[in-house]
C-alpha cells in the first residue's frame, strides 16, 4: 500500500515537472476563478449585514402634518404607546419640526433643490418607531393603521428603502456567480488539457503498463492526483488573495463615517475562514473531476 502510494506521488511530481508551463496556467486559472467565487460569498455576506442592521433599527417613520392639532398629535402618540407588544417604547422617539429640519439638512446635504423646498413651517415632524418584530409583514400592517389617522402626512417603511439594496445585491450576486462559474469551467478544461498532455507524453510507458497487466486505477491515480493538486494549489493562492482583499476592504471601510451604512459592510473573520475552507474543497474537487474525466477518456483498456 505504502509502496503504491509512494509510486503515485513520485509519478505525480515527475509529471508536474515535465509540464511546468501548462501546470502553472491551470493553477493560475483556478486561483482566479476561485478568488471570484470567494469574493461573491463575501459581497453577499456584506450586503446581508447591511440589511440586517437596518431591520434591527428604525423600521417605520410616521410623518405628522405641520398644521396638526395638539389633540391629533396626542392621539397618534397614545396610539403608538398603547402597543407595547409591537413597538419598542424605550426607543420611540418624536422629532419636532426644528429637529426634523435639522435632520433634513443632513439627509439632503447632497440635494440642495429638495432642501430649498423645505422650511421650518412646512416640514412634517416625525415619530421614529422601532418595531419589536422583524417580520416585514407585521410592520407593514402596523403602518396601515397610522396612514388613516388624522394629522398623519404619511408613513415610510425601512423595508421599502431596502428594495434598492436588495435589487442591487441580487444583481451583483448574479453577475459574480455567473462569472465565477464560467472561470471555474475554464479552470476545469485547462486542468483536463494538462492531464491529456501528460498522458500523451507518457503514452509509451502507459502502453507497457497495460501490456504487463497494470490495472486502470493504478495507471490513473497519479494523473488524478496531479489534477487534484493543481486545483488545490489554485485554491491556496486564491485564499491568500481573498485574505488580502478582505483586509484591504476592512481597513478601507473603517475610514467611513459611522452610521452611513458602509460600516456594516465588514465581514467577520470567522466567516472568511469558512469561505476559504469551501474554496479549498471546491478547488480540489474541480481539479479531481477535470483530471478524472481526462484520464478515463484517454486511458481506454
Amino acid at each position, binding site marked *: 500500500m505504502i509502496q503504491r502510494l509512494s509510486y503515485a506521488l513520485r509519478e505525480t511530481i515527475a509529471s508536474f515537472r515535465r509540464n511546468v508551463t501548462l501546470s502553472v496556467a491551470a493553477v493560475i486559472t483556478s486561483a482566479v476563478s476561485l478568488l471570484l467565487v470567494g469574493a461573491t460569498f463575501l459581497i453577499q455576506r456584506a450586503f446581508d449585514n447591511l440589511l440586517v442592521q437596518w431591520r434591527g433599527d428604525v423600521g417605520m417613520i410616521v410623518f405628522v402634518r405641520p398644521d396638526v392639532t395638539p389633540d391629533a398629535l396626542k392621539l397618534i402618540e397614545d396610539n403608538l404607546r398603547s402597543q407595547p407588544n409591537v413597538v419598542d417604547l424605550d426607543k420611540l422617539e418624536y422629532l419636532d419640526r426644528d429637529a426634523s429640519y435639522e435632520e433634513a439638512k443632513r439627509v439632503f446635504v447632497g440635494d440642495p433643490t429638495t432642501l430649498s423646498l423645505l422650511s421650518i413651517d412646512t416640514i412634517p415632524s416625525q415619530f421614529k418607531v422601532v418595531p419589536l418584530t422583524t417580520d416585514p409583514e407585521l410592520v407593514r400592517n402596523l403602518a396601515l393603521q397610522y396612514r388613516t389617522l388624522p394629522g398623519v402626512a404619511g408613513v415610510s417603511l425601512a423595508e421599502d428603502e431596502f428594495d434598492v439594496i436588495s435589487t442591487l445585491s441580487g444583481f451583483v450576486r448574479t453577475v459574480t456567480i455567473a462569472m465565477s462559474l464560467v472561470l471555474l469551467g475554464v479552470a476545469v478544461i485547462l486542468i483536463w488539457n494538462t492531464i491529456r498532455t501528460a498522458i500523451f507524453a507518457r503514452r509509451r510507458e502507459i502502453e*507497457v*503498463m*497495460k*501490456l*504487463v497487466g*497494470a490495472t486502470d486505477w493504478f495507471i490513473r491515480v497519479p494523473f488524478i492526483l496531479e489534477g487534484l493538486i493543481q486545483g488545490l494549489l489554485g485554491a491556496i493562492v486564491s485564499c491568500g488573495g481573498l485574505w488580502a482583499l478582505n483586509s484591504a476592504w476592512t481597513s478601507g471601510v473603517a475610514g467611513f463615517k459611522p452610521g452611513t451604512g458602509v460600516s456594516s459592510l465588514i465581514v467577520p473573520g470567522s466567516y472568511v475562514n469558512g469561505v476559504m475552507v469551501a474554496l479549498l474543497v471546491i478547488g480540489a474537487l474541480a481539479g479531481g473531476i477535470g483530471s478524472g474525466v481526462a484520464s478515463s477518456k484517454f486511458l481506454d*483498456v
Partner: protein
Amino acid sequence: MIRLENVSKMYGGEIPAVRDATFDIAKGDFVFLVGPSGSGKSTLLRLINRQERPERGDVWVAGRNINEMANNQIPHLRRTMGNVFQDYKLLPNKTVFENVAFALEVIGKPKHVIGQQVPQVLELVGLSGKEDRFPHQLSGGEQQRVSIARAFVNRPLILLADEPTGNLDPATGEGIMGLLDAINRTGTTVVMATHDHRVVNAMRRRVIQLDRGVIVRDQERGVYE
C-alpha cells in the same frame, strides 16, 4: 491453452484483417505465425492479448472466453502473458534493471520479490552485470533480451512475440531464438509472428501460415514456404 473459433476481425468495417480463423494451441507449444506483411499475424496476437476484440467468433485463453471478460479482468489476463516486440518498447529513461522491475512494480509486487526475481531473469537472458545500463547503451540484441526478460519476469503461461528478430542480424537473431526456445522448455507456451525464413526453417516447429487474413496452412514441424 489458446483456442480461436471462427474468429473474424475487420479494420474500418470493410477489409478483413483476419477471416474465419480457427485453431488450438496446447500448453507448452511453440507456434510460428508466418505470412507476408499485412496477412494478419499481428492482429492474431492482438486478439489473444485482447488489445483487439473480434467482430465474430470467440477467443479462449486458459479455459476462459476473453471476449466475454469484464474490462476490470483484463489486467489479470495480461499478467498471464508476456509480450515481446520488434521495436522492444523499452522505456528510454529507465535502466535495464528498472525496465524489468517496472513490470513487477506496476502489478504491485513487493520490493523484496522484485529484488529477487529481476537479477534471476537478467541472468537467464545473459545480461548480468549490465543492470545499470540505459537502453541506448545496449546493442539491438541486448535490448531485445531486456524486453524478453521483462516479458518473462512474471513467469507467464504464454509468451507472445511479434517479429522479435525483425531488427536484428542473423547471428543475433539466432541467439534470441535460443532464448525463446529455452523459455518454451520451461513450459511456457510461445506464439511468435515472423516472416524470417531462417528461424522458422531452423527450428522446425508448428507453423500456421496466413494469407490476406485466411489460414492457408497449419503444419506440425513445418518450414517457411
